């Protein structure tokens, strides 16, 4: 009797997790894989094969866009880390307990507004007749209007702004767990600031850095709105390619193939990153 109850409660506890994994993650992905292996030969006639994947590698536009998306996402990740690290360090180590809460809140506030509104905010700031351009002209620094929207720099600014919080939170929580006496010990033993940072703080924060980078990279490579709205004539983004395949070209089969390729590509990049920094996925998840 006792044993049965124990088993039942175990099953009940496990059920939501199992349902979530199968219904929302496994099944849709299996569906996508199956869809991506179909090729359209005529209206309402399909065959199974790898044509959609072969098409991707035969058409330079597609893999160039994927590489472009990947490299720009890496750049965004690095920038988010460089900007986010000092902020996280300040929140975790320097700010007092009350200020810490307030600072976290300040970081969170932009998230209360939807992605779309934030992108429009940047459009208002950066456009030729926008706030920054008009302000610089008013100051007399510029003689004519300047266009800062519709280029890759605008896309990167927008993306860093959108994702930086996801870098700060894991970093701050890792750094928070670090004993201050370790830093003091570093200085007592004659280390300079840069040495302490390089030999003590960064190695300690490594799991946080890794998990922050993974989240930020994945979010960026999979983002759609920001690159579309802020990007210019040449700013292709891979998710846009997927949308076009699904919606404007009615080609769900190759859209699904592109989706799987994006998943494979980002997974490989993350795996490489973990290998290079000597981290494991389990380690980054448990420490933060």
């Amino acid at each position, binding site marked *: 009797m006792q044993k049965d109850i124990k088993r039942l409660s175990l099953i009940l506890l496990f059920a939501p997790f199992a349902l979530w994994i199968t219904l929302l993650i496994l099944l849709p992905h299996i569906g996508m894989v199956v869809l991506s292996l179909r090729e359209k030969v005529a209206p309402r006639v399909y065959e199974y094969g790898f044509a959609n994947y072969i098409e991707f590698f035969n058409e330079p536009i597609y893999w160039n866009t994927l590489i472009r998306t990947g490299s720009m996402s890496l750049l965004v990740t690095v920038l988010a880390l460089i900007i986010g690290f000092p902020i996280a360090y300040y929140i975790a180590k320097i700010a007092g307990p009350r200020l810490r809460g307030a600072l976290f809140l300040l970081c969170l506030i932009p998230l209360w507004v939807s992605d779309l509104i934030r992108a429009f905010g940047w459009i208002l700031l950066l*456009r*030729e007749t926008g706030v920054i351009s008009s302000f610089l002209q008013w100051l007399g620094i510029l003689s004519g209007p300047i266009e800062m929207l519709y280029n890759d720099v605008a896309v990167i600014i927008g993306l860093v702004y959108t994702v930086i919080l996801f870098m700060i939170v894991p970093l701050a929580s890792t750094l928070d767990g670090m004993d201050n006496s370790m830093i003091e010990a570093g200085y007592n033993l004659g280390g300079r600031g840069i040495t302490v940072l390089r030999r003590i703080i960064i190695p300690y924060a490594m799991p946080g850095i890794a998990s922050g980078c993974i989240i930020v990279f994945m979010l960026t490579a999979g983002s759609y709105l920001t690159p579309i709205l802020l990007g210019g004539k040449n700013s292709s983004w891979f998710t846009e390619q997927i949308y*076009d395949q699904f919606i*404007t*070209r*009615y*080609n769900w089969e190759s859209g699904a193939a592109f989706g799987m390729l994006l998943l494979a590509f980002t997974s490989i990049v993350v795996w490489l990153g973990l290998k290079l920094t000597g981290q494991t996925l389990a380690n980054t998840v448990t420490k933060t």
Partner: protein
Amino acid sequence: MKYKATMISVVAVLVFSVASIAQAETTLRLLTWGSYAPDELIQKFEAEYPDITVEVTFSNNEEMIAKLRATGGAGFDLAQPSHDRVHAAQLEYDIYKPMDLSQIDTSVMSEVHLEGVKANTTIDGEVYSVPHQWGTSGLMADKSKAPDFKHWSDLCDPMYKGKTSMRLKRTILLGTAFSMGYDPFAAYADLDEYQKILDEVVEVLIACKENVKAYWKGGDDLAALMLSGEIVASETWDSTAYRIYGENPNIVFVPPSTGALTWIDTFTLPRKGKADDAAYKWINFVLRAENVTIMSGSSGAIAAVNGGQDLLPPDKKAAVNAAFTPEDIANLKFFANIPPGIEDMEGKALEKIKAATGG
């Protein structure tokens, strides 16, 4: 005490559910364009037919087809794809069902549009669509800054460098093909021929990239570019141009010299729709003269009914008159049915233009 509270809530739930059964509610689920179902009309319709509630989903041609394809034509009772998008979608995905024309008062519809739509959407002798509203795609220019803007190719005129815009979709491909002296719609019959035209169009539009400030993505986007004066001319939908004309009368819709490209949005029944009667009621309702004015006021498009242009609200009528001469109307080019395979070719062409560096 607790028992009593539970009883009361159970009774309340029962009463409410019985009440809703007694009303025998039908829900009419519309899949249509933004502004094609103004609140004013919905309220009027629900007042006239108290047993019908209207639910609206806003969408566009591509997403309508994607949504219906995902469910095999379920989830909506009435859709409004453009006339050139029905035939191929039906052949490929079987998402619509034939219309019962006896349920619709076709006598109010203008002959040209009704016959045109019928011709485009008849499959195996069955008619799948009737017309609702029509409008055009063409150019828009600020007359104070670009007075002579008249051709599709003016978008690429170095005189307006960095001051023009276009949407990177099929309309600009077709417009450019017309401006080069081709008839892309005639070439639809021969895909190899059409591919040749597309290749040339792609070259022209890649060279044109330098001239274009940015590709617009939606009406609001375009309105902001135009009203701020950042661009002086653009490819546009006429309804967007009319809206802007309301705010700045210098900005008018310009039918291109080769003819404005004309679309007709239709009424089409999804295959697994559950409220056909309500759908027919809605169709007849919105085509009534007094309701046409409300609809056109919201959408900026002209109803495909007899004298549709006269039923426009005054501000829209002024904008149309500022844009079209009778010759322009005679020169309209109706979008031809898109045969299967064209979307892929045009999609590839657009990708090439977007990916080309330069400009």
